[in-house]
């Protein structure tokens, strides 16, 4: 509920500063407007956050999505610049992303490495790999077909938004209409117990990481297609942090075992709207990070049971809250 309130407040703030904020018009058969821009520029973040949601639901985390974004864009652009077909280039890039995601999943579920660290490896090495693919240059491609993914329109709607809606619909169907979502949550609560209950925990975890990497790959194609170039150094930089933030704002617990796809989409939209708002009300864009820091801290504090207990109990002045005792022990 909280995320929706915040999003509405942010949008209302925008209307206050730019009265024409909600107006959507059709120019040259394309939809235009601030809301469409938020959706369009937020599309890659929403995709990456969707993948991240499933990984976090299994009790993990994926730091490598930013690097995967860069690798996917770099490989696709390299293939296209070498006169390969766009379809083959996209398929190859997404295939590589699946392999990288499965590798992350194997390290976490097969070898048993902490998720933060297992994906840290690909986060560091992947950035180097992307630069290796582009040879440290920015590859520019001139392919109308490739441009469609991030900059095209279909029935007046930007293709990026359609892709997000498609992925969201498929994910929601698979996880909420079929048993998959429950299996993921049970693995997140206790992987060992889930395994003993007959769930293939390893397979589920590997699948979640592969899905996250695939989403990141599509986002990478969108980002590079939108600007018709691939930058191994800067594409998708810090997107992993924004994605984790979006998931957390959306109410998915970092401890795993519970997830909300709708919340994640709201969270990603809040982040994108925040960025847009900061530009539109004339606050220097450098302060975006400060706002994000405040939002993360506030959201985490609100979600922390200990914080709620301390603050709200103190207000109602009930004696002897449990955490006080813990503090007394630690300061003894």
């Amino acid at each position, binding site marked *: 509920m909280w995320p929706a309130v915040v999003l509405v407040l942010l949008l209302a703030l925008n209307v206050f500063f730019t009265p024409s904020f909600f107006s959507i018009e059709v120019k040259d058969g394309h939809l235009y407007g601030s809301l469409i821009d938020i959706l369009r520029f937020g599309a890659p973040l929403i995709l990456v956050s969707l993948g991240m949601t499933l990984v976090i639901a299994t009790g993990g*985390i994926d730091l490598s999505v930013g690097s995967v974004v860069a690798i996917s864009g770099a490989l696709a652009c390299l293939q296209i610049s070498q006169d390969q077909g766009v379809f083959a280039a996209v398929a190859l890039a997404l295939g590589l992303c699946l392999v990288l995601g499965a590798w992350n999943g194997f390290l976490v579920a097969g*070898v*048993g*490495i*902490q998720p*933060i*660290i*297992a994906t*840290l*490896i*690909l*986060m*560091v*090495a*992947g*950035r*180097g*790999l992307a*630069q*290796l693919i582009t*040879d*440290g240059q920015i590859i520019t491609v001139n392919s109308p077909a490739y441009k469609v993914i991030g900059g095209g329109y279909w029935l007046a709607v930007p293709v990026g938004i359609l892709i997000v809606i498609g992925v969201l619909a498929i994910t929601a169907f698979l996880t909420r209409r079929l048993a998959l979502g429950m299996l993921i949550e049970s693995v997140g609560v206790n992987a060992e117990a889930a395994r003993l209950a007959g769930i293939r925990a390893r397979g589920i975890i590997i699948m979640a990481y592969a899905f996250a990497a695939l989403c990141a790959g599509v986002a990478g194609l969108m980002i590079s297609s939108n600007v018709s170039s691939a930058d*191994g150094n800067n594409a998708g930089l810090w997107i992993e*942090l924004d994605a*984790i*933030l979006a998931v*957390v704002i959306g109410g998915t617990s*970092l401890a795993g075992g519970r997830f909300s796809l709708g919340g994640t989409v709201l969270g990603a939209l809040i982040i994108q709207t925040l960025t847009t708002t900061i530009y539109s009300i004339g606050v*220097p864009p*450098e*302060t*975006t*990070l*400060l*706002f*994000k*820091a*405040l939002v*993360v*801290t506030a959201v*985490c*504090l609100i979600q*922390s*049971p*200990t*914080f709620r207990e*301390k603050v709200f109990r103190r207000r109602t002045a009930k004696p002897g809250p449990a955490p006080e005792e*813990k*503090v007394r*022990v*630690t*300061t*003894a």
Partner: protein
Amino acid sequence: MTIGRASVPAKYLPVLVTGCLLVAMFVVGGIRYEGFAGGQVILNVFIDNGFLLVVAVGMTFVILTGGIDLSVGSVVALSTMVAASLMEGPGWPPYLVVPLVLAIGSGLGLVMGYIVQAFDIQPFIVTLAGMFLARGLCYTIGTDSIPIDDPTFTAFAQTRIDLFADLWISPSVIIALVVVGVAAYVLHYTRFGRSVYATGGSEQSALLMGLPVGRTKIAVYTVSGFCSALGGVLLSFYMLSGYGQHAVAMELDAIAAVVIGGTLLTGGSGFLFGTVLGVLVLGLIQTILSFEGTLSSWWTKIFIGMLLFVFILLQRLFSRRSGR
């Protein structure tokens, strides 16, 4: 869970492996490149990575308790920015600026540690917020690079301390080594150090033993904040400028150095000396790549990634063998 304490060889094995790797890299480099096998090459690694060494020392404390600190790179950048802007704008003297910068860093660490401990939020997400905050503060101070031409700072930056036989080091190296020495003493010979290991080994057991777990956890983040600020001061000696883009992704280098140095990421086991070796390995990779000349800078990242992989796999094997 007494990981790594089962027998003496298992305890020292990760550090030993890193040491052997370092020696092997040095020998290979010495055979391949002319002018590599001199003492100055090793000293240059120290000179170029003094700030990373200090930051990694702070990170070691945090990781030993089983936490993680993602804010270090941003705090380093914030320190260079605050130092540069205060000396250039109002013209504050260095002896006021440096303590202030150290206090800011420690304060940030203290607040993050308090939030981690008091509200039971994952260190990952708290220090992520700290990372955004510090980087955002940098850009609020200014988006451009601010040069430092304070006479004391430039004099300090250009000082060469001659050792025997044409070898020299910078004063930053001495500061970094003093930090390493003090930190090693604190970790291995004081009550606080033992609390750090105990907290990382098992927080519950440490709590039941009556150890000040809460205070220890807050303290390690404060130590890390202090080390980051000091690293920032050393970086501003090295760069002679303050810039919001300094030390981007340095937290990854620091974490990598600690892991390659054989400290267990789950906490409770590891040595400060290993972190020193880890920083040297990272520095030597860069030196070898610069001697190689034809290889490009992105190979550094790929090599660091591969090394991380190998060492984490080794850690897994060690902890599995001694844990069961």
